[in-house]
């Protein structure tokens, strides 16, 4: 009797805890207001950028950065390393600094590195990419606000529109991309 009372109590407290969590959505939970159609259209524009090689080349799902619009494996056997910034004696910083190099035309931007593997997009469907963007276990524990900040402010992301001579830029302008990110999030961050 005592045991069943205890189990019942346990069950109730779990129920209360989950109810509390449900009742009080975190500030960062997906907005339920807004227009999903608008969000979907904005996602379409965003994906044109995210899937462009300037972005995709550094978001691999394996350990090799890519180069060029043909996404060939980075020359010189360059690899991710344990901190996404290269191997022990082949660090990204061996060649890439915080801005494009005017002499060698080697690209550069602040914190030049590969996106962590959990943020790899290569080979993923549009829906999977979108789902991963808002999944905190995969997006570097970013809230939607932080995700917006990352996509619209991070200088390494913004580098895609100033990649240096001879490199193509995403087919959506920087300004329109920022607008698309905002619209996507404000209207519910739909994933398909």
């Amino acid at each position, binding site marked *: 009797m005592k045991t069943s009372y205890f189990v019942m109590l346990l069950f109730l407290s779990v129920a209360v805890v989950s109810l509390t969590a449900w009742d009080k959505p975190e500030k960062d939970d997906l907005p339920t207001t807004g227009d999903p159609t608008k969000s979907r259209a904005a996602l379409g524009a965003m994906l044109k950028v995210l899937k462009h090689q300037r972005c995709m080349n550094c978001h691999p799902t394996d350990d090799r950065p890519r180069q060029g619009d043909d996404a060939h494996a980075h020359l010189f056997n360059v690899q991710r390393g344990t901190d996404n910034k290269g191997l022990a*004696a082949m660090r990204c910083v061996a060649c890439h600094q915080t801005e494009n190099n005017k002499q060698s035309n080697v690209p550069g931007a602040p914190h030049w590195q590969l996106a962590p593997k959990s943020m790899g997009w290569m080979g993923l469907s549009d829906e999977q990419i979108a789902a991963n963007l808002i999944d905190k276990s995969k997006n570097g524990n970013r809230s939607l606000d932080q995700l917006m900040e990352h996509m619209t402010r991070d200088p390494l992301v913004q580098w895609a529109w100033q990649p240096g001579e001879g490199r193509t830029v995403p087919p959506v302008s920087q300004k329109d991309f920022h607008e698309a990110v905002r619209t996507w999030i404000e209207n519910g961050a739909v994933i398909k």
Partner: protein
Amino acid sequence: MQLTFEINNQSHTVEVPEDMPLLWVIRDVLRLKGTKFGCGQAMCGACTVQVDGDAIRSCSYAAKFAQGKKVTTIEALANEEKLHPVQQAWLDERVPQCGYCQPGFIMATKSLLEKIPNPSEDEINDNITNICRCGTYHRMRKAIHRAVELQQKSKL
């Protein structure tokens, strides 16, 4: 710009354009000719030096980024009495042919062994990616293993 940095344990202040490659500062301003120019595009590694311990391709490193940093070039490796273990190993295995690429390889190897004192074949392949037009790779690999031995002995 006025660039103040440490090179081979000596502090220097030089007046140079901020985007001048560090390689030009080293070779043409400070007249240290051991570091070589190969491709100028961060591809061959002939210009490798260490900046704060990391192997850097100095042809693709704007002078301004060296401000306040510690740069090491091939000239700092040996002293009057003794070669650096990597240099000694290079000599023991008679690595160079024309020799042009070798300072870069030696600096890259020094950097590797400071971070991985006993690298595997894979770690050598992955970390030493310089180019030697004379194809001395086989002897270099032997010399890297020899340098590991020499470093281990010198620690005994």
